């Protein structure tokens, strides 16, 4: 929430009673609630969270490596891509750009485009993503690049290189990372983020379990006819 408060003027989260609390602000607030903490973790801890979120979509060269440094930028300034009219360039602001550096392999840039409750046509979302790909390529020409569309219910972006993740997947992964086997910062992230996403009603399928309950017996006296 710190980044959203400082950079986007967000003052509330998951609160729809106030007119000034637009959907746009909600999206920024939630992005910051979930991803700002990664900026303050050690690179290896932030990497574990990101690696688990990406799962098999992570480039195989990187799956077994450990980063030596990282940078988490929310709504970075200064990126540009071709404007809609095609003649000029205009400002391009991905929601989140992560950079991980390694000793023996090119750095990896992961760009995230977030959508919360916006109903957006798949081609519009794809248009934003294509611009972001272009802007990131210009800014980081020597790095390997991945782009992620993190949405609630939007249809998958079927384009090579775009990884589709849902907020419910983030809940599932956060729930997994609560386990005692992980380092404290990762475990704490898992605990807090899974609780937050439960409050935000972004809960993943966790199986069918029932409380034990005895058969209920009712004894009503039949009314005389």
């Amino acid at each position, binding site marked *: 929430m710190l980044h959203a408060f400082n950079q986007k003027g967000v003052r509330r989260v998951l609160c729809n009673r106030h007119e000034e609390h637009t959907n746009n602000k909600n999206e920024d607030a939630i992005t910051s609630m979930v991803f700002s903490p990664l900026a303050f973790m050690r690179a290896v801890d932030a990497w574990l969270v990101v690696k688990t979120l990406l799962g098999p979509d992570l480039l195989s060269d990187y799956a077994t490596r450990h980063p030596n440094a990282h940078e988490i930028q929310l709504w970075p300034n200064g990126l540009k891509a071709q404007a809609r009219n095609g003649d000029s360039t205009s400002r391009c602001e991905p929601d989140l750009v992560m950079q991980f550096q390694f000793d023996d392999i090119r750095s990896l840039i992961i760009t995230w485009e977030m959508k919360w409750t916006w109903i957006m046509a798949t081609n519009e979302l794809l248009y934003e993503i294509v611009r972001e790909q272009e802007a990131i390529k210009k800014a980081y020409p020597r790095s390997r690049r991945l782009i992620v569309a993190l949405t609630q219910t939007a249809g998958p972006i079927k384009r090579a290189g775009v990884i589709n993740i849902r907020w*419910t997947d983030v809940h*599932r992964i956060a729930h997994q990372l609560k386990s005692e086997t992980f380092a404290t910062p990762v475990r704490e992230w898992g605990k807090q983020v899974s609780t937050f996403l439960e409050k935000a009603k972004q809960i993943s*399928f966790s*199986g*069918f379990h029932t*409380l034990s309950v005895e058969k*209920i017996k009712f004894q009503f006296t039949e009314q005389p006819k």
Partner: protein
Amino acid sequence: MNECNIFKSFLNSDTTWREVERLSEEAPEMFHKTGLSLDLQENDYDEASFQDVIASSSCYSYKLFLPKSKKHRGLLIAFEMYRPVSHSSWEHSNSALITCAYTPAYKDLWSLQMVLADENGYPADDYTRDNCYLYPDVPELVVWGEKNNTTERPKVPLDETDWFFSIPLSTISNRQAFFEKIVLPCSSLLKGTEPASALAVSNAVRFNEWSKK
């Protein structure tokens, strides 16, 4: 704190329906891992009033695409939570079931009513009983068509005919269980694996032969 079984019953019901909804949204992603592409279309909810009790069930229908095929096939995932039971010896008469029902043409998709089981392990629907039979030696698999004798298999492969199988819902305790008991068997059947092998580890319920009914 007071213990109230009525409260607990409704809590169970609420929790279960929420998990059903989540599973229906996450199912396409799990099928995608086996190369099957699913697109959620609609859901249906049914409350059948019978003998003064309410039987609850619901289903979700998906358009299904096989690899390298543009044909709109269909998959129905149905949840049968309860059925009236009086006297039954069928092992699963008191079990909630999840059913995976396939059709080679989406427009002819199974309806919810057609894939429900009765307390004796027969399809509850007359139309299903009249038009389907149990796959030879695999009583877990109900197949569309007319059976001429007890050993005759369908004349077309299983990706070209309609079928369904059911699993006790309580065994779907996490995503991995859904993948192993529903997604993999379904994918294997469509790829031509022998039904006995495809359903071997699924714990699919064995239906009873209804022609003997």
